[in-house]
Every structure is written in C-alpha cells, then in structure tokens.
C-alpha cells in the first residue's frame, strides 16, 4: 500500500505516523509539504495529528486552507482513501470533506488517556480487520475533540452508516461516563459518504505494539492493506 503523509507547520505526529505506516505496510510513506500542489501516487493520504498553526483561530482551520489541500480534496473525489487523525480530522471538517465540526472539549481541558471505542461497522476497508462486537482501545490526546453536527446531519450520518467509532465503556456502553469530550452521540470518528474518507480523534499510530501498551491501532491499516490487495 502506497501512503502519503501531509506535513504542515505545527504538525507533530507526522513522524509517529510515518513510522507506524512503514512498520505496518513495509513501505516508507512519502512525506508531502503543505505548499505542494500535487500529491505523489498513493492509495492512502494521511493528515496527521498535531497543532498546525498552533490551533490558532480554530483547530485545523488554517491547515485546511493550505495549497496542498486542493490536491487532497481532488484525491478524495477520485476515490482515494484519506485518513485524518485528530488535527487531521479537524482539517477534514474544516474543508467540508466531512460534515460537522470539532469544538473545545466539554470539560474545557486537554485530555490524554486511553479510551474504549466501539467499531460501529466492520465491513468497511478501514474497519474490516477489527473483530465485530468487542470494543477496541486507543489513546486520545486533544483539547478540541468535541464533535458537533446538527440534528439533520447526525440523522443522516446514522442513517447512512457513516459513524466509524464511538466512545464506549469497557463493556461497550456508549454512555456519558465513557464520553471524554462531550461529542454528540459519543462520536469519535466518521466516514464520508463513500466510506473512503475517515476522520477520527483517537490516535491509531500510537498503539501499534505491546511495548507501548497495546496494538489496536494496527488493524486499521492492516484492514486497508487487505482491501487494496
């Protein structure tokens, strides 16, 4: 699987993402600077986590207007897979590639911890390698992960099966206690209508080996590799 990782001023999870992708796919992904207007050939384009432009004005707002984003949007329209992690998810909502917005966490504080997520459906390329029916565990680390969309949008997302992950308790309950940031519907990640653009707040690239505390980040990429082969 060929991957490209876009790097903006203030991206700080780019190395983690490059390392994880190389380790899992066996192939070094291509880093792309934000001023490029072209993307290299890639099956997967990743917008990594970070604090691009310091999260000033709004998280992801200025990165979403970078020259490279036109090419990213074109790729998405052409059917490529696009993954936005954390700040990347924020960029995807700012460009409109995904609906809704990520706002300040309800508790108003930055939060770094592991959370349980339900994988809402396991029949998409991104999620196919996850076991159905049991929650997975991934780390979150964000200040602005509170997903908001109006009622109509939420209904549409639900109806079209575009919720990718929800924050749940260890036993799988999507209740208030399990919701770290106030996201509507405990939503932690969503898909575009063709299921090929995925935005998620948790960091799969940070949990890919037992030494780091777990490997539930791997299947996201492994499933995609399978789907592409």
């Amino acid at each position: 699987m060929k991957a490209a990782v876009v790097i903006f001023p203030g991206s700080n999870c780019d190395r983690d993402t490059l390392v994880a992708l190389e380790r899992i796919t066996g192939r070094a992904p291509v880093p792309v600077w934000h001023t490029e207007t072209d993307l290299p050939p890639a099956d997967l384009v990743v917008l990594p986590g970070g604090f691009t432009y310091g999260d000033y004005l709004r998280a992801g707002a200025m990165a979403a207007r970078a020259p490279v984003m036109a090419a990213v949007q074109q790729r998405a329209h052409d059917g490529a897979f696009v993954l936005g992690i954390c700040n990347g998810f924020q960029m995807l909502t700012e460009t409109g590639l995904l609906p809704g917005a990520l706002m300040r966490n309800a508790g108003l504080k930055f939060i770094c911890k592991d959370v349980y997520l339900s994988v809402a459906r396991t029949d998409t390329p991104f999620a196919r390698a996850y076991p159905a029916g049991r929650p997975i565990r991934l780390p979150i680390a964000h200040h602005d992960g509170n997903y908001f969309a109006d009622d109509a949008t939420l209904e549409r997302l639900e109806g079209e099966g575009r919720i990718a992950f929800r924050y749940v308790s260890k036993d799988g309950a999507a209740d208030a206690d399990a919701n770290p940031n106030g996201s509507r519907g405990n939503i932690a990640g969503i898909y575009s209508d063709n299921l090929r653009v995925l935005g998620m707040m948790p960091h799969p690239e940070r949990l890919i080996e037992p030494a780091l505390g777990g490997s539930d980040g791997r299947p996201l990429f492994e499933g995609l590799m399978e789907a592409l082969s």
Partner: protein
Amino acid sequence: MTKTSSSATAPAQPQTGAAAPEPPITAAMVKEHGLTEDEYARVLRALNRPPTLTELGIYSVMWSEHCSYKSSRVWLKRLPTAGPHVICGPGENAGIVDIGNGLAAVFKMESHNHPSFIEPYQGAATGVGGIMRDVFTMGARPVANLNALRFGAPEHDKTRHLVDGVVAGIGGYGNCFGVPTVGGEVEFDPAYNGNILVNAMCVGIAPADKIFYAAASGVGNPVVYVGSKTGRDGIHGATMASAEFDDDSHEKRPTVQVGDPFTEKLLLEACLELMAEDAIVAIQDMGAAGLTSSSVEMAGKGGVGIELTLDAVPCREDAMTAYEMLLSESQERMLMVLKPGKEEVARRIFEKWQLDIAVIGTITDTGRMVVRHHGVTVADLPLDSLNDDAPLYERPYEIPSPAAPLDIAKAPAPANAAQTLVAMIASPAVCSRRWIWEQYDHTIMGDTLQRPGGDAGVVRVHGTNTALAVTVDVTPRYCKADPQAGGKQAVAETWRNLSATGARPLAVTDCMNFGNPERPDIMGQFAGCILGMKEACEALDYPVVSGNVSLYNETNGQGILPTPAIGGVGLIEDARLYARMDGMKAGDDLILVGDEHGHLGQSLYLRDVLGVDLETEGGAPPPVDLAAERRNGDFVRGLIATGRLSAVHDVSDGGLYVAVAELCLASRIGAHMSLPEGLPAHAALFGEDQSRYVIALPTALTRQALRAAAKAGVSARHLGHVGGVDLIAEGCDPISVEMLRTAHEGWFPRYMDATH
C-alpha cells in the same frame, strides 16, 4: 528618547531618525538597576569612564544573580561534574551524557518561579519553552519533559487558581510543541504560599558527534538572529530609562512574556534542518536577558569580540530603543554565528518555516562587545569584564545544626493503622496526580514505555533498543531539618527511582530553589544541601551535568523550604527489560530490599497524621547510607535484568505501607504483608527509611533472590505475597483495593472542581 517614526514591524528594515542621547547615570539609576556601589565601581574601573544607560543595562543583567550566579558559584563549583560518560558538564546550555549507539542525552532543569506566581499559565508555559530551547540549541530533539511543582497549602486562597494555570500552561506549551510530558512531582506546603515553584526539565537526544556549542569563532563570521520578532516583553525597570512616559506606556511594556509554542516548534524544525547542513559555528537561545546574554556569552566563550547593528533586529513594536532591544526577553528567538557564505542556506530554511531571520552583526577579534543603533555607538564594552569580572560572593552562611533525633513519645501509634493508611493515600501529599498528568500529552512521539504514575518515566530511544528513565525528586522537609542530609537524600532518591525501573543512573541536573542568600541561615541551607548532594553524587558515580539556581524565593521575610530539586536520567540497556509497578500477579511473592529501622523523623505520618510541627518537634530526617544505597540499587537492577520480576517499586513518602498500597493500586490486586520483629508496628509501616525497594516476583524465584541478596551484602526479607482483593498488613484490618482506589483518585478532582 524621542519617538521615531519607523516601520519597525517590518523585518530587518533600517530604522530612520536619530537616537536621542542617553541620560547621564545617577546613583539612583545604578540602584534601580540592581547594582551595588561596589559593583558599579568595578564597572567604572573596567571602562575608565561612566557607562551609557544601555551599557548600564547590559552590566545589570549580566551581573544579576540569575545570569552570573554570584551568590552560588562558590558552592556550585564543589559539585562533581565529570564521569566517563559525561560529554559536557555545567556551563553550556544543557548537560550532555553519552548513551551509546552514537547518541547523547542532552538535559537540564530550570525554574520559572516568580513569573508563574504572577501569571501562572504564561509563566509556566514560557518556563517550558525556555528549557526546551536550551536543549535543542545544542542540536538535540527534545524527547521527554518533566516538572517539579510546589504550591502553597490547599486551603490558601490562591492555590487552586495557581495549580489550574500552571498545569494548563505546561500542557498548553508542551502539547502544542509536541513532546511527551512523562513525569514530575507536585507538593503542597504552606511554606510556598507566597512563592510557588515551577521547575521544568527537558531531555533531548542528539548524535554524540554533532553537538552544537555556544562559543563563537571566526573573525568576520555573520551573527544571525532567528525566530520571533522582538517586543518589549520582560524588560523590568526599563521604564525609567526612556523619556517616553505617556498614557499607554504601561500597556506597551508587558512584564509577562507570552509564549508561542507554535513558533517554537517551527524554530525547532528549522534549527535542526540547518544543523544538518554544515553551516553553524555557534548557537545559543535568547533566554533571560535575551540578546545581551546570548551575544556576551557566545563571544566571551569564544574569546572573540562581537559587533551588533540593532537597526537590523526584527521588531514587532514601534520605535524600540537600543536598551529595549538588548534587554527584551521576547521568547522563541535564537542567535547563531554562521560559517561565511552560509547566510543563503539559512535564509532558505528559515523562510520555509516562516520565521524571521536577520544578519545583525559580525564576529571580531577585539574582545569587545560593540553595539550600534542609528549610526551611533550605544555600547562598547570589554567582554572579559562582563563575563569574568562578575562579582563572586562568598556570602556568610550558617549551616543549621541538624535536628535532634525524634522523641518517639511524640509519635504514638494510630488507633487504626489501616484507616490511617487510607487517610494518607487520600491526602494531598500521596494521592493520585492523574488530574494533572491527563492534561499532558504523554504518548506523543510514539516511544513512551512507562506513562506518568510510576517511579520514573521511561521513553525508548528512537531507532534503538535502549530506553531512558527520567525522574525528578526532592524532599524539602528533610532539607529544612538538616540541609546536608536532605541534599544527600534528594540525589539518592532519584538514583533509587531510576534503579527501580532497571535503569543505570547516568547523571543529574539540579534546580536549586532557596530564599534570600543574603541571610546567613538561607545561605547555610544552600551550602548544606550542596555538601550533601556532593557526597551522594560522588558515592553513586552520578555527576551533575547542568543546573539552575533560583534565589530570593521569599515574601515578607518568609522563605520557602530549601528545595534542591534533582532531575535524574538513567539508561536502560534493553528496552524490553525494564521494571514497572503494574505487573504483580496472584501467587507472586513480595520481597523487601533494604534495612528497616522504623525511622519516623520528618515523616508524612508525623506531619499529616499526628499534626506534629516538623520544625520544632519533627526530629531528624531518615539518614542515607550511601554504600547500602549503592549495593541495594545495583542488586535490584541486576534482578530486573533477568526479566523475570513482576513488579518493582521504591519506598519513599509515607513508608512501606504506602509503597505496597501503591503497588496494589497499579497492579489492581491485593497483597499480604508482614512486619519485621523488634519494631513498633506503626514505625515499620510508616517509617521512611531510605534505600528500600518492594519487589514482586514468582515464588519459584524467591529463595534464589534472597540468597543472591545475602551474597551481595544486601538486606532483604520475604515481605508477603500477592493475591485477593484486599491489602492486609500484619495485625491490621484488611483494606479493599477498590476502597484504596477511591481514596487515591478522589482528592485531586474534588479539590480542583470545588466551587468556592
């Protein structure tokens, strides 16, 4: 100075208009600049004429306590700073030790106490920013941050606000910059009511053969400014320097610097990129005293001279005077000396990262610092006077005689030891700090092996099979009772924390926080702590490679507790073989390594449970037997290297009962623990005897381990076993681990979320 019209907000544009002549120096000005009559006399002797106002400003910051260490140098020199793996000791931006694989760990700790009390968020944030710059200016990418925070009593009306702001500021800066914050300590004590302590530590990694130093060289080489524009941040007492007193002069002179972690991240990447080219001769970050200290130090260390043209300095405020530009403490700026002809490659890189870059001077061979502005020479000073002639004080000191040993009658047994344990676990001194560290990103960079909450943070050295263990620690109440014992204990405790993870302790960075050094009792605390630290560093082969001193931490004559915060870094040779606290399994045995004497002097039990006034009746702090400390740590490290232990935890505040409780909490399982013969139960449970570790291991290994201990001359005994859902100490009521958890996790969130 008259206001000049200029386009000072545009980068590197020459300012128009002539500078007005500076006022002549008066005795009042000298005093306002913090120089004594004696110090001023030295200046006159060095120059053979009175200084200009700008020159007075330069001397005042270079000879300030902060920059010159005038009260502390005579004592700091006594610390051991060399060792086989030390690449660079104190005196540079950070200390450097070899960690194998062609790599070096670059680290330092610094204080930002006074600014954090005034503006907790920005004070703490800029403290973090400053220490990270000290590390990456040497060519190292920061990989782990820690901090030591001390606040006043929880009931003190400012404490909650300060905790909130400081934690948010540390997280706000570190998280945005992108370095995991993996460890630290937090303490509450009324002694810090008027003076909180914010000590920030940063550890970075660089190729051992590509370290960048500050010593400038090469006559004619360009002096280049990079980073943020210069404003009027942090110029204290400069208000009287300028005739521009008008209605918005107050607004124009912020004394609190606002940090910009986004710009610092860009600065990091740009500097590392330029460092990879063969372009940099010398580089230093602009920290305290900004452009002045960096240029004076860089030229001084190189034995050269430096010429600056301030017209070229990128400014974000209008009509900045020479004085202001030289003394500004605007953040996120670096000063570099480049090889000739390398200005273009630097410009390309810094423009890519959207940072200001300007050639503002040249290196000369005159040994002088010459500064020009608007065509006028505003300063022409001999560098050896600035750097080497700074006053060195041998302040009078009285090391207090150590407190008398505790009168055991003052330390009766509790009515119910188990209930006492729960109360201690729930207390501000012992409870979980999760409320704090969940606000710090501790998993970014994908190499954090041990997250906050353990004995030390552990981060893998990227691209290798090794890891670094990092910790910060000190017990100020011990230092108050007996500075020498306390200094020794602080070093020993960090050495122990590192050994408890299986790391070989390499070196120390210190952050010495004390009151007013002009008081002999405070100077005595400083001297005593240094002597104790020296003893421990020598005995443990654990040199000091960097450090910082913060004095005058007092309000209305009330000083803080002597607080020599010690930051330790150790190396784990095989990243798969380190020890944690959360691996105890049902059926494991527990072993206690180390001697038990039931030492209750200066303990938390005395202070928090019995409410004893430690100063008058607290007794002596627990002594450290450095030879035993070494034997015990080496032994534990050896056991950890077998890869067969379940868990390890060192014993500290609160004593053995607390240590075992913490293991049960981390491992989510109960345990039985026995008490030694010949000691009152409460002394064995809550005594804070030093050099001890609790180890959990499969029963099949216990006998072997105890035999090996005996052979190594290490005291060790079978302590108990792991299992069930309760912690049961001999002769005490069982306590469910779940109840312990509620107690442990409850205090902080309740305290911080309380409305008042």
